C-alpha cells in the first residue's frame, strides 16, 4: 500500500541538515567555503544564488560542521543597528555588553577579545543590510580578526559586490546553481528510497521528472513544494478512490503546478 501521506511529509519546506542532498553545485560550494575558512585566505566569503537554491541550507550545514571545532556565530536575520552585531559578538564570547560605552571603544575591545580565537560569522540574507552595516562588516573584516560568510540573492548580491565596501577587498565568491534533471531524479529517488517509499519512487518516469524540472526550473525549494503538493493530490485520490489519479500522469503534474501557481490557466 502506497503511503502518499507519509511521503508528503518528506518534502516539507524545512531545513534539516541531517538530510543533505549532495547536488554538484551544493557540494562544490560547500567545499569551497570550508577550504576558504580553513586556510583563512579571505575575510569575506559570499554565497550567491537565487531564492530557494540552498544558500541558507549550505550556510547552516557549514555552520553545523564547523561549530564543533571552533566558534561560529549564525545570524539568520539582518540586524537593525550596528551595535546589535557587536552585542551578538560579545554574547557569543560570554562577555558582558555595556550599551553606555561608545561604539569605537566597544569595537576595539571586541577585536582584542577575538584576536587569538578561530571563529566564523555566518550572516544569512545579507542583501537586506544597509550601507552603514556593510561598512561595519568591512571594517571588522579589515582587522583580519573576523571572518564573515554572507549569503545574498543573486540579483542584489551582484550589485552589492560592486559597491566600494567590497569591490577591492579580498573575497571568495560561491555561486550556487539550480538542480539539473538527473539531480532532480536522484533527489526524489534517494529521498523516497531512504525513507522506505520505494514503491512511490517507482511511479516517477523520466518524462515526469522532465516536466517537474520544466515547471520548477530546478529550484530546490520549488521542487520540494511541488512534490509536497503532488503527494497531497495522490493521497487525496487514494483516499477518495479516484483510480485515475492514483498514478502520476500529465494531468496530475499540471494540477500540482496549478496549485502552487507555477502555471496559470487564465493566459
Amino acid at each position, binding site marked *: 500500500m502506497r503511503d502518499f501521506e507519509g511521503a508528503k511529509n518528506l518534502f516539507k519546506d524545512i531545513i534539516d541538515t541531517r538530510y543533505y542532498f549532495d547536488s554538484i553545485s551544493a557540494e562544490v560550494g560547500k567545499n569551497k567555503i570550508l577550504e576558504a575558512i580553513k586556510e583563512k585566505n579571505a575575510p569575506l566569503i559570499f554565497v550567491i544564488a537565487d531564492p530557494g537554491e540552498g544558500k541558507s541550507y549550505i550556510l547552516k550545514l557549514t555552520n553545523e560542521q564547523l561549530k564543533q571545532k571552533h566558534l561560529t556565530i549564525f545570524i539568520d536575520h539582518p540586524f537593525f543597528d550596528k551595535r546589535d552585531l557587536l552585542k551578538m559578538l560579545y554574547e557569543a564570547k560570554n562577555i558582558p555588553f555595556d550599551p553606555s560605552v561608545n561604539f569605537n571603544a566597544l569595537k576595539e575591545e571586541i577585536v582584542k577579545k577575538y584576536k587569538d580565537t578561530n571563529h566564523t560569522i555566518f550572516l544569512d540574507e545579507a542583501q537586506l543590510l544597509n550601507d552603514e552595516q556593510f561598512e561595519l562588516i568591512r571594517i571588522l573584516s579589515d582587522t583580519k580578526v573576523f571572518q564573515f560568510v554572507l549569503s545574498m540573492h543573486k540579483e542584489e548580491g551582484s550589485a552589492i559586490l560592486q559597491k566600494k565596501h567590497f569591490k577591492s577587498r579580498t573575497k571568495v565568491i560561491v555561486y550556487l546553481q539550480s538542480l539539473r534533471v538527473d539531480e532532480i531524479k536522484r533527489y526524489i529517488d534517494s529521498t523516497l528510497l531512504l525513507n522506505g517509499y520505494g514503491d512511490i519512487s517507482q511511479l516517477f518516469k523520466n518524462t515526469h521528472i522532465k516536466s517537474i524540472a520544466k515547471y520548477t526550473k530546478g529550484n530546490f525549494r520549488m521542487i520540494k513544494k511541488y512534490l509536497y503538493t503532488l503527494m497531497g493530490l495522490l493521497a487525496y485520490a487514494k483516499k477518495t478512490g479516484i483510480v485515475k489519479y492514483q498514478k502520476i500522469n500529465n494531468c496530475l503534474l499540471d*494540477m500540482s503546478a496549478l496549485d502552487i501557481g507555477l502555471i496559470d*490557466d487564465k493566459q
Partner: protein
Amino acid sequence: MTNSRFEDLERRCKKIKNRKIIKFVIYIIFLSTFVVLLFYLAGNKYLKQDKVPNAKKTVLNNKKKIILNNVKKTILDNKNKKKTVKNSKKATLKLEPVIELPKILPQRKITKQAKSKSNKSVQKPIVVPSKKETIEKKETQKPAFRIIAKDANKETILLKNYSINKDFSSALKLAEYYFWQKNYKKAIYWSKNANKLDSAKDDSWIIYAKSKYALGEKDDAIESLKTFLNIFYSKRANELLKRYQKGQK
C-alpha cells in the same frame, strides 16, 4: 485537500489540456501552410528562371530544342525521303496544274454562281474569253510559271541535297532560301538544323536572328545573338546585334 479544490484543479487541468491541443493544431496548420507556401514560391521562382533565360540557359534550351528537332527531323526525313522522290519525279508535272488551277477553278465556280444568280450585274468572269485572249493570257502567265517552277525546283534540289549530304552548308542554304522567300518559320527551322551541325559558325545564328526579328520577336533575336557572342566572336553578329539594339533593321 478538499473535494472542491481537487475538482477545481481537475477542471483547470482539462482547460490547459484543451489549450495545448488547440495550440498544437494551430502549429500544425501554420507549419503546413508555411511548407505549402515555400513549395509554391520555390515553384514560381523555378518557372521565372525558365521564362527569363540567361546565356547558359539559352544554350541549354537550344540544345534541348535541337534534340527535339532531331527527333522531329528524323520523322520528317523519312517522310521527306518519300516526298522528295515523288516530288523530283512529279515536280514538272505537278507545277503546271498547280499554277493553272487558280485560273480555271474560279471561273468554274463563278460560272456556276452566275447561272444560279440569273440576271444580276454583269461580271467579268462570266464572259467567256476568246481564243486570242486565252493565248495572250497564257503568254503573260508564262514568266510567272517559270519563276515559280524555278523556285520550286530550287527548293526540291536543296532538300534533296540536304537529304544526301546532311551537312551544315546544305542546311544553311535551305535556311537562306526560306529566309529570302520570307518563310521565316521554315528559315528558323533550317537555321536550327544548321546550328546543330555546326554551332560555331555565325551564319546560322544570323539567319535565325534575322528571321526572329522579321517575325517581330525582337527580344529573341537579340537574346540569340547575345548568346552566340558570349561564346564566340563574330563581327557580323556583333554589328547585327548593335543594329537590333538600336531598333534598326
